[in-house]
């Protein structure tokens, strides 16, 4: 009886440790839902588009969200605007130079102001944003939503596991990243508003 109790206790402890362990969420989304929307609103011209070539991994522990680490990558060539000539310019040397700098990335350094309520955690995430080869430290407010056992519903039962949804809205300066530096601010706004909406999967 004692031996059985000890075994049960050990198994329960192991299970709780396994459940509390940080999980590795993969943000390569086969459904193509993950996206980043960008807007530049200048007095003479507004430019708006999106990117969906998102990948990367985030290590997230629902029991310790402050320890979240990860790297999100956007394929620069996946940036799209509805005007074909504008898209050509956007991918060109003056703007993002996607041939030389194929990736836009954000790597976390630390989280602050972490607040958790139910499945949702909000935090100010500080990390390194690299665009066109220029790396700058930024802090962005991010909302994490941990969806336990929801991977099955999203893959029609083909995979089981958890989902992590991340939403962030923040602004960066075009001039900080040497994006089309010669353009006047009347035509091309210096402020780029970014909205990131991504979901990662941690299969079991």
């Amino acid at each position: 009886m004692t031996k059985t109790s000890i075994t049960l206790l050990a198994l329960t402890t192991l299970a709780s440790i396994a459940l509390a362990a940080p999980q590795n969420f993969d943000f390569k989304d086969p459904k193509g839902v993950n996206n980043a929307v960008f807007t530049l609103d200048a007095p003479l011209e507004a430019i708006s588009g999106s990117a969906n070539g998102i990948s990367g991994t985030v290590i997230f522990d629902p029991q310790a969200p402050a320890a979240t680490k990860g790297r999100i990558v956007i394929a620069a060539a996946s940036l799209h605007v509805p005007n074909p000539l504008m898209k050509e310019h956007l991918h060109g040397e003056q703007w993002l130079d996607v041939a030389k700098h194929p990736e836009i990335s954000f790597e976390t350094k630390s989280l602050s102001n972490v607040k958790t309520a139910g499945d949702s955690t909000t935090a100010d995430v500080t990390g390194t944003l690299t665009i066109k080869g220029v790396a700058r430290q930024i802090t962005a407010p991010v909302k994490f939503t941990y969806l336990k056992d929801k991977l099955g519903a999203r893959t029609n039962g083909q995979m089981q596991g958890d989902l992590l949804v991340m939403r962030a809205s923040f602004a960066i300066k075009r001039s900080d990243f040497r994006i089309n530096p010669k353009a006047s601010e009347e035509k091309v706004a210096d402020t780029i508003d970014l909205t990131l909406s991504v979901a990662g999967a941690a299969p079991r």
Partner: protein
Amino acid sequence: MSKTLRILALVLALAAATTWLATGGNRGWTKTSVPVKTVDEITGLEAVSYDRRFVPGLDFLGAALLGASLLAGGSFLFRNKQTTT
């Protein structure tokens, strides 16, 4: 000849203006794709995809009106034949 050019100019201007208005009178640049937003039921995320569609903008209208003006202007280079009785 001059009359033909003027009719062509008028047809071009009217066709361009009608196309521009019929497609929503887009006051921005011409688009060859339009964003379509859908919501993922599980995650609640709004996905953005693009449908291939031609939406003429002010640049299209401007180019067509410029072409029509050139045609109309060119029509004055041709003089009507004088008929003598």
